[in-house]
């Protein structure tokens, strides 16, 4: 799955790209287990064809997209994004996809649509940990409309020039580079427009630890650990100091204005 170099400002970081092996063997995808080695071990059971994504809610043109049609909806671009996990580690991943805004424009949201909800596949037959009590299933994430419309918000079909591996959220996922990784839902089956702030998976599990916004912010600590620094996977040696985490994961120039006037400590 090839993508042309993106012309969107901020879409191609100069940071060294993480090894494919690390990016595809160390991540969180709780539908396949809570250990970061679990998704690569267990996700082979996920069935990605046929795949339908339903887009509905407060839109003029709700639709059910076959994956093939969704891929062709707009030109594929390569975006090299930093990924910062809320746990304190980070990677740099070349994703392939297009700005979610292209899909949003297609379905024509109504005036009262304020939020977009992203619902992941939850099939206990192919996803062994769906049904575990860690989270409510299906996994639900959401963005405010202006966040969803930001050109950096990527509807993603591939990485490293290939179709997404199952463990990374095949066949279609979201990537929101200025937010902690869990905000980017994987294996999406439904995108719903709504007028109320949706209840998101981690927020439901621990509201005091995972806010709705969950923007990367070195000044707002997780209640149980500092968010000031991060370990870049595969790059910083064992004895190297961890690197400083950047405001909005380094995308402040592109997204800072979305939060003008907001108290980010309160709206964490």
């Amino acid at each position: 799955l090839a993508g042309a170099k993106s012309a969107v400002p901020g879409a191609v970081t100069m940071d060294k790209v993480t090894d494919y092996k690390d990016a595809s063997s160390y991540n969180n995808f709780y539908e396949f287990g809570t250990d970061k080695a679990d998704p690569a071990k267990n996700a082979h059971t996920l069935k990605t064809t046929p795949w339908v994504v339903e887009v509905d809610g407060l839109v003029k043109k709700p639709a059910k997209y076959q994956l093939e049609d969704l891929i062709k909806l707009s030109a594929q671009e390569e975006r090299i994004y930093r990924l910062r996990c809320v746990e304190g580690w980070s990677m740099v991943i070349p994703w392939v996809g297009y700005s979610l805004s292209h899909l949003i424009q297609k379905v024509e949201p109504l005036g009262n649509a304020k939020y977009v909800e992203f619902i992941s596949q939850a099939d206990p037959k192919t996803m062994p940990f769906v049904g575990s009590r860690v989270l409510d299933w299906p996994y639900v994430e959401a963005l405010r409309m202006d966040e969803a419309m930001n050109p950096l918000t990527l509807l993603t079909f591939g990485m490293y020039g290939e179709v997404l591996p199952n463990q990374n959220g095949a066949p279609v996922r979201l990537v929101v580079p200025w937010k902690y990784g869990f905000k980017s839902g994987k294996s999406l089956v439904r995108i719903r427009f709504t007028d109320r702030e949706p209840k998101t998976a981690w927020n439901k599990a621990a509201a005091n630890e995972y806010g709705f916004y969950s923007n990367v912010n070195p000044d707002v600590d997780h209640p149980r650990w500092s968010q000031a620094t991060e370990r870049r996977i595969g790059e910083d040696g064992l004895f190297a100091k961890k690197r400083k985490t950047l405001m909005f994961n380094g995308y402040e120039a592109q997204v800072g204005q979305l939060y003008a006037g907001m108290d980010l400590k309160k709206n964490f």
Partner: protein
Amino acid sequence: MGAAKALLHPAAKPAVFLLALLPLVWLVYAAFTNNLGANPAEHLIRSLGDWTLRFLCLTLAITPLRVVTKTPALARFRRMLGLFTYFYVVLHLLGYAWFDMGLDLADIAKDIAKRPFILVGFAGFVLLTPLAATSFNRAIKAMGARRWQLLHKLVYAVAGLGILHFFWMRAGKNNFAEVAVYAAILAVLLGWRVVQFARLRSAGAPRASGQPPSRVRG
């Protein structure tokens, strides 16, 4: 009994010593050959924590096993296993301080105060320190058996802190399967002592030290 004989063999202690070093040897080897996965620092720190907990369980298992199986020779290994528990907890702490915190003492102090699970783990390490420091024979003599035994009862508190540390660390992912296994093992090992204590007490038997307190103090 063959097993008891083997335990008394002159090579038994060195053999257990080498076995107890194997986890560290493996981790160092894996670190140098790039076999610790995508996040070697995290893997090292967590593995050293796992081994601390395992050695703590082994140490606490000695006395119940010795009594239940009537194998006095097991007592020879208790101190060594206890010291390996301390050895692995020191490495665990050092790994955290170095790999996670870059040996920045101010940051470490802040982190210990900020994160309850780090505080609890650190408290466990602190409580274990005087036990390791008084593990040699001269210390027992100098302190007197009774006071020494009293001090070493701290290991039960350490067990509690250790399992709480592990529980809290896993709480973020609501993933308690492994925690439950260790908690169950520790509950059996500590529960056996409670039952034993109650039994001896109701039987009017002398204290575990086997000596009247007045003599020990002298």
